[in-house]
């Protein structure tokens, strides 16, 4: 069922969105037809979730209008969206851990007075019905706390089903699900479509999109670049459209020889997260680690750094077997880790920038426990000028800097520690193009100075430009080890797209 | 310019000190001086110190104080004296540090409190049976003196040989705690005939327990209480009689004495006497102490309505 005869149930016109001055959606026009399953595709950060959230009233657009059945609507908050018949299944399942499953299902759907009665009996009955429909065996009376991510996702899906909405947006609903659960979800999605409802399906898994969707819209860098019938596009077309930005040319420097093995990981396994991971990184080498979101790359990095050590397998550092049970051990071995979520795991928001920069080298600035303020300041100033961090003063709280400059400060922090091995998890996420280029230079210089670098990135051009070798993970397994030259957008994507035989993450992910 | 007199109570919101204050106020009105009442929010030993310091700065002429501690105030009292202020302790003294103040005004000779209370209790229970004491805090100095005197009287006076003191408990001057302690006394000593509560909070709590259990004929409650708090219990027969003195007169006497000393008409020396309207002749006893009355006043159905405090 494609466009033409029927009129769209929901149209977006000129939707734009800025976060703190950064434009993440630009002038998006999109029509959703009744009775279609419409895929949204695009790289990480392309703006899919942001668009979904605008439609569902979580964010308000900076520009543009939404029209529902021909009428302009102001979806000011999620409740209004619900009333208008728009439901969003969030990428991260929303749960209220202390409420029962049944209540999580009903919360936000009920209308009425504050003192209106909670219909426990009916609620429980309905919830059981929905769970049966989805074929999951979850006791609806138990609290959400302790449910696996997959089960939480199923509850989210059940919630959307129960809502009777005309438009249901599913933001990567299948990421944590097993193939069987995915199949059930698809059956239900098709049935809903046949009832005339509209489903928006966001996923990175092309084969799922092919199996389920009628039309696809592709986002790139906040722009809608194409909307086509799924049959009209080949996989290659889709990938080209998704990643086809003009890659900023970065000159791959090859200063130093690649030396001996600095980091060797063998058969690293952590139940439910990653399995049998083996690779090595040599001195002076930049090894990329690619894959789709949720492939388990961060978990591998965390295991190497001792945040959440692996269950089995070994890590060797400079040829010696290493026992890494906590970050302190890893730091002691000369490993540095730049985490992906800057705000949560990286910065000390309320502290001055200089203290943030020197945070990883307490022994250097405070040899006997006493801080040498002059030295600290000098080191911070040096890092600021070397990395061209833009700030008013090194005493400025880091929380006031822009995201890119925060990220530079964190990188500076680890450079001060003079690590021999650097693990960078999405170091350029949320950073503007200009700064990115600086980063690439810096990373190249680091390798040129003989450091071993493991670079986790979801941006293919970045991996291709920087890396001597690219590892690819899919569903917790290493699926490719591509030398520079062999690695291309196509080969990486091929290895990254799950084949459905990976680790069954559901249930175990939270076990 | 009128003389400035302040009275510093133990704590605010305590009806007992309100009554002393009324005596101060009325005397100042009739004699023409400027009066102010001050008190800390809690009866903490140190909480009066900043108040006294501020009064020294303010340049008052007379400080009357009911001290929260016998020795925490030494320095600041010395400073007040050095600044030429006449310092009187009222209702309680800085025992052991008498040299820090000019004189003390006590309602009654406190050595009489214990025996008077025992006698009153005895008269209510026919001088025989088990009795208990419900006091304030374990450290309350006045109460401890009285309790010691009660025990002494019971032991040494043959008149009370059939009365047996079975327990002394402490309600910390909190209604809740006093109530549970009273309840526990009743549970632990089923033959209890009477309870002496030499503290205003304790006697009210004890009376309330007796009232709510309807056992006023079996367990007699007496002690030291305020007429305003005990009026109901006297009227409904829960409590036959209790004792106290007139806090009002303490304030009244303090002002007359202070103004007399300052204008030279009263000599502050042991053995001296002077006249005070309504109170008659007052004698300055040992340690420069004086009393407003000779014996405790007994309150019962016949006179409870004559007292407004």
């Amino acid at each position: 069922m494609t466009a033409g005869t029927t009129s769209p149930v929901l149209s977006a016109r000129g939707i734009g969105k800025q976060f703190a001055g950064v434009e993440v959606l630009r002038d998006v026009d999109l029509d959703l037809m009744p009775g279609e399953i419409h895929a949204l595709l695009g790289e990480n950060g392309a703006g899919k979730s942001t668009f979904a959230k605008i439609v569902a009233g979580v964010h308000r657009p900076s520009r543009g209008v939404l029209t529902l059945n021909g009428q302009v609507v102001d979806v000011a908050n999620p409740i209004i969206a619900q009333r208008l018949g728009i439901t969003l299944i969030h990428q991260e399942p929303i749960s209220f851990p202390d409420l029962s499953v049944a209540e999580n299902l009903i919360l936000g759907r009920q209308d009425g007075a504050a003192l209106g009665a909670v219909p426990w009996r009916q609620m429980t009955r309905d919830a059981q019905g929905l769970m049966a429909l989805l074929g999951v065996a979850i006791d609806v009376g138990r609290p959400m706390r302790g449910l696996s991510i997959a089960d939480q996702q199923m509850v989210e899906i059940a919630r959307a089903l129960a809502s009777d909405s005309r438009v249901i947006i599913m933001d990567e609903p299948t990421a944590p699900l097993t193939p069987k659960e995915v199949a059930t979800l698809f059956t239900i999605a098709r049935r809903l479509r046949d009832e005339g409802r509209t489903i928006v399906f966001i996923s990175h898994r092309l084969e799922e999109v092919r199996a389920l969707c009628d039309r696809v819209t592709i986002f790139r860098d906040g722009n809608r670049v194409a909307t086509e019938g799924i049959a009209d596009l080949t996989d290659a077309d889709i990938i080209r459209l998704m990643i086809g930005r003009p890659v900023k040319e970065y000159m791959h420097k090859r200063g130093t020889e690649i030396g001996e093995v600095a980091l060797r990981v063998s058969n690293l396994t952590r139940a439910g997260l990653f399995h049998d991971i083996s690779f090595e990184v040599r001195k002076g080498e930049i090894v990329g680690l690619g894959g789709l979101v949720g492939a388990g790359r961060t978990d591998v990095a965390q295991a190497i750094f001792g945040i959440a050590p692996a269950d089995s397998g070994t890590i060797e550092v400079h040829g010696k077997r290493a026992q890494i049970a906590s970050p302190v051990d890893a730091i002691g071995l000369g490993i540095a880790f730049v985490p992906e979520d800057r705000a949560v795991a990286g910065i000390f928001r309320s502290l001055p920038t200089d203290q943030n920069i020197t945070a990883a080298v307490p022994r250097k600035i405070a040899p006997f426990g006493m801080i040498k303020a002059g030295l600290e300041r000098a080191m911070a100033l040096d890092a600021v000028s070397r990395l061209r961090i833009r700030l008013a003063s090194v005493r400025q709280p880091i929380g006031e800097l822009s995201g890119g400059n925060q990220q530079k400060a964190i990188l500076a922090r680890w450079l001060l520690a003079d690590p021999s091995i650097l693990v960078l998890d999405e170091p350029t996420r949320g950073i503007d193009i200009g700064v990115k280029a600086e980063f690439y230079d810096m990373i190249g210089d680091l390798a040129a100075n003989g450091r071993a670098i493991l670079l986790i990135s979801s941006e293919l051009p970045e991996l291709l430009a920087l890396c001597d070798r690219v590892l690819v993970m899919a569903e917790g397994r290493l699926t490719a080890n591509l030398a520079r030259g062999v690695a291309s957008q196509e080969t990486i994507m091929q290895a990254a797209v799950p084949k459905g035989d990976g680790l069954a993450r559901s249930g175990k992910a939270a076990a | 310019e009128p003389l400035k007199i302040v009275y510093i109570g133990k704590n605010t919101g305590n009806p007992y000190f309100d009554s002393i204050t009324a005596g101060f106020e009325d005397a100042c009105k009739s004699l023409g001086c400027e009066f102010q009442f001050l008190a800390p929010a809690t009866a903490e030993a140190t909480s009066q110190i900043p108040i006294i310091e501020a009064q020294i700065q303010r340049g008052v002429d007379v400080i009357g104080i009911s001290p929260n501690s016998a020795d925490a105030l030494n320095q600041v009292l010395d400073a007040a004296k050095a600044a030429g202020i006449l310092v009187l302790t009222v209702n309680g003294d800085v025992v052991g540090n008498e040299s820090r103040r000019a004189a003390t005004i006590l309602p009654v000779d406190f050595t009489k409190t214990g025996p008077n209370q025992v006698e009153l209790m005895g008269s209510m229970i026919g001088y025989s049976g088990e009795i208990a004491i419900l006091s304030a805090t374990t450290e309350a100095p006045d109460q401890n003196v009285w309790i010691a005197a009660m025990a002494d009287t019971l032991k040494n006076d043959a008149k009370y040989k059939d009365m047996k003191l079975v327990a002394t408990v402490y309600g910390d001057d909190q209604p809740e705690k006093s109530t549970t302690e009273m309840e526990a006394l009743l549970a632990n000593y089923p033959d209890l005939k009477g309870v002496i509560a030499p503290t205003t909070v304790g006697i009210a709590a004890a009376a309330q327990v007796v009232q709510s259990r309807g056992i006023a004929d079996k367990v007699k409650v007496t002690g030291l209480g305020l007429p305003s708090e005990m009026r109901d219990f006297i009227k409904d027969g829960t409590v036959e009689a209790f004792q106290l003195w007139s806090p009002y007169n303490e304030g009244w006497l303090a002002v007359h004495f202070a103004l007399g000393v300052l204008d030279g008409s009263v000599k502050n020396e042991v053995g001296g006497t002077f006249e005070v309207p309504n109170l008659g002749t007052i004698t300055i006893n040992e340690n420069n102490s004086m009393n407003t009355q000779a014996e405790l006043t007994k309150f019962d159905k016949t006179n409870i309505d004559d007292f407004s405090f």
Partner: protein
Amino acid sequence: MTGWRHILLRREAGIAVMIVLFCLSVGAVKPQFLTLDSLRIILLLVPLIMIGAMGQMLVLLARHVDLSIGSMLGLTAMASGMMFRYMPEVWWPVGFLVSVGLGAVLGLFNGALVTVFRLPAIIVTLGTLNLYRGLTFIMSDAKQIDRQYVPSALKSMSVTSPIFGIPWIIFISFGVAILTYWFVMHTRIGRQIYALGSNPVAAPLRGISVTKVTLVVFAISGALSGLAGILYASRWGFVNPSNTGSGFELQVIAAVVIGGVSINGGVGTVAGTVLGVVLLGCVSAALPLLGIPGTTQSAIYGAVILLALMIDRLVRMQGMARSTRAAVP
């Protein structure tokens, strides 16, 4: 039996077992502890704390805390007390309206500071703890409302009984508990309190008004403090500007926390809270009976709180072990 009920029962059964064990051991030493009479004593000890605990439970469920309840109790009791004293012609039950209404207003003020200025509740209510107490002093000119001014009908509510010889005041406090149970379990807003405390970030995504829920819990906490205030006047027959209600917050928070309500929001039940209140009541009643000086009570209180918490935590750690991933992304 569902997992949910399982944990619930374990937690509350734990307190119930503690209560039974405690009472039996005290009874072994002092048989009079196991009489109806001492049940009456215990029940008469708890009404005010019970009422305060219901309000505090709601506040904690929403991930806040209300330290000002003792001062609100004092101020609302004083307001009614002054009405009784200076307007004796007013029909006495109006005192309930005055105290409860004023309490609700004071609670709303707390809630408004918390929501409008986004200040932490612990600090806001620490401030109003002082502020409300000071207002009580100013309003009353630091004068106690004596027994003679408190209407006899009000006072007799703590003595006379509608049925079974159990005084009115106890019925009222258990009535409040039952109402609270209905409120949190069977009204939409009640469930929203749990949701907010459980996940404050996600709550608005489900259409829960954080402002509204926060105002409601603080207003209820204030109103219930007001109810406790007028009942204080009933129970003790006087209102004192400095003593009335002081320290109430600590007793109440102790009871609520022992009852299994989490300071981190979202977790807690009315039944648990009632049991927590009763456990503290048993302890308070038993100590003097055992001849333990009232002063030791503090230490035992403290120990009971810590013990109950550790047990709770151990139970909870087991529960959590199942659902935790490294908390680091």
